[in-house]
């Protein structure tokens, strides 16, 4: 009887500790979000910071003075707190200021800060002036993602099933090119694909230029400054993000399943389609997200490998934000980009989604 009461008190202590810890975590997050987003008048945000500081001291005191149960209940929140505060202040709050900026207008071109005024016309401008850039961003990113699957899947398959004891070294080789800077690699491609560069001369020697021209990869005997060069660059730069997750999911496939399928008179290709491919879908799914999302927002490849008619939305955001100082329209474009990508990801994960993404 007595032990039951003690147990009950303990669990009450524990669950109230849990509730307190969680409530404090959320509260601190919201406060920092508010401070970062500038919801509060000037004096108040300083006061809030003091309150947050005191609350943290209180939490530590409660953990030190309270029993081991309370300490255990509070520990996870205590460990989460510093990192969460960083993300609340520097990830969530900026999304709010971005949204706010996208609804603001600058009175003159030279104002540093735009004034908030429910300026929905920024979104109109984003679509009407930069519609083609949006279209190209998703088109190129989609094409590059498809190409990385075409190139990456067999490579991942080879490493997983034919790698043998070289597996880890081959896997390392996939990553090694990425120890040189992204920009340097892209600049290197721009000289490889240049008009007098090695790629064009090889193609001309093999007399493939006519065919490539016919299917629209080359333009007037040029590779550089074409749409295909941009897609090519994106494909190259994000290929490892496709190979690695596909490898991870293929590595888990039990090879005896394939033997079993073949013992049951399935052909090799049918065994692949019915056994291996479905089991590797989570890897393809993760790889697609890891490739498509950064590719859609990229502007480096379009800058170095494209021409003024192949700019992507990233180029426009960068140009409007950093060169024209037109923060409102740039913010509107960034916000739309994020919204479209979020919707695409949600639809996509509805069809192909798996729980063990992270």
């Amino acid at each position, binding site marked *: 009887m007595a032990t039951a009461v003690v147990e009950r008190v303990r669990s009450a202590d524990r669950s109230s500790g849990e509730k307190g810890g969680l409530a404090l975590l959320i509260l601190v997050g919201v406060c920092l979000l508010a401070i970062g987003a500038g919801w509060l008048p000037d004096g108040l945000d300083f006061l809030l910071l003091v309150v947050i500081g005191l609350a943290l001291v209180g939490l530590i005191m409660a953990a030190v003075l309270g029993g081991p149960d309370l300490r255990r209940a509070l520990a996870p929140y205590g460990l989460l707190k510093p*990192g969460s505060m960083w993300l609340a202040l520097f990830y969530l709050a900026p999304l709010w200021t971005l949204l706010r900026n996208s609804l603001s207008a600058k009175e003159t071109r030279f104002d540093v800060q735009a004034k908030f005024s429910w300026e929905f016309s920024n979104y109109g401008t984003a679509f009407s002036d930069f519609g083609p850039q949006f279209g190209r961003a998703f088109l190129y990113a989609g094409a590059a993602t498809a190409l990385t699957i075409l*190139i990456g899947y*067999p490579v991942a398959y080879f490493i997983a099933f034919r790698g043998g004891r070289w597996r880890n070294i081959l896997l390392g080789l996939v990553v090694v090119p990425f120890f040189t800077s992204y920009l340097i*690699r892209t*600049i290197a491609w721009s000289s490889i694909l240049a008009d007098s560069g090695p790629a064009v001369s090889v193609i001309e020697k093999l007399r493939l230029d006519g065919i490539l021209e016919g299917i629209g990869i080359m333009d007037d005997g040029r590779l550089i400054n074409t749409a295909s060069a941009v897609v090519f660059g994106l494909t190259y730069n994000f290929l490892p993000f496709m190979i690695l997750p596909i490898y991870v999911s293929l590595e888990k496939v039990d090879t005896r399943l394939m033997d079993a399928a073949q013992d049951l008179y399935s052909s090799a290709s049918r065994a692949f389609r019915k056994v291996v491919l479905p089991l590797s879908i989570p890897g393809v799914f993760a790889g697609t997200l890891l490739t498509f999302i950064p590719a859609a927002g990229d502007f480096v490849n379009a800058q170095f490998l494209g021409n003024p008619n192949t700019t992507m939305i990233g180029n426009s*955001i960068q140009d409007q934000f950093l060169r024209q100082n037109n923060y409102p329209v740039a913010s509107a474009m960034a916000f739309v980009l994020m919204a479209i990508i979020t919707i695409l990801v949600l639809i996509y994960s509805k069809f192909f989604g798996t729980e063990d993404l992270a």
Partner: protein
Amino acid sequence: MSRAFSLRTRVGRGALAAYAAAGFIFLFTPIAFIVAFSFNKPKGKFNIIWQEFTLDNWRNPLADEALTEALWTSLRIAALSTVIATILGSMIAISLSRYTFRGSSTYNFLLVLPLTTPEIVLGSSLATLFLGQTIVEFGFTTIVIAHVMFQVSFVALTVRARIRGYDWTLEQAAQDLGASPFMTFRKVTLPLILPGIMAAALLAFALSIDDFIITFFNAGSTMTFPLQIFGASRVSISPQINVLATSILLLTVTILAVGTVTGARRRARHGIEA
């Protein structure tokens, strides 16, 4: 089974091997190009057309002063942001893998969010935050803040994946044997989770050094290594870019190779399966 594989299977396997080889050649083409051009003697300011072989660039790899300065800035930013992000991220990872608590699944989702946001959105949104205040100016501090922001998620997810199978009851055993909480952490917990944390820190460091898009929006007039290359690429591409890139590549590959080999040796010595 005198013929283990039919002709068709062997042809298929050969084709797959050839395809994979082509994939690897594709991956290494620009790398070979970068390394080769560190030995080029360029005519004019752009080191993009092969002229003649020279070792001059390697004699003074730091000849491009602005580039060297920028590399130094990048290293300082990477070191500082990696330390902060590794501490914050590891704490999150320990919290998530060790305890089940209210809100942990929502928290998981929050952690993945920054990774599924395009870099250009992360960069521009953070810049709008900094534009609206007067406490910090764009520069070193804002770059570090930005880098920690995207590193934290990477570190947390990497460390969590590495310590997933960790047996937390070992800590209780240590405490039952009279170890203080601090002693338990130092002697039991830390040695076990350290490899995961080191791997995450290396990844975070690499991400910071190479980040261009987010940094571009939050740098002000501070020049990091990628920003310097980008800014200079319109007027000149010096061979020192290739020399430094090649050196960084060799250095990281050596560190990784040594780490892998000694790690494998240690595991072999202790008789633990990899």
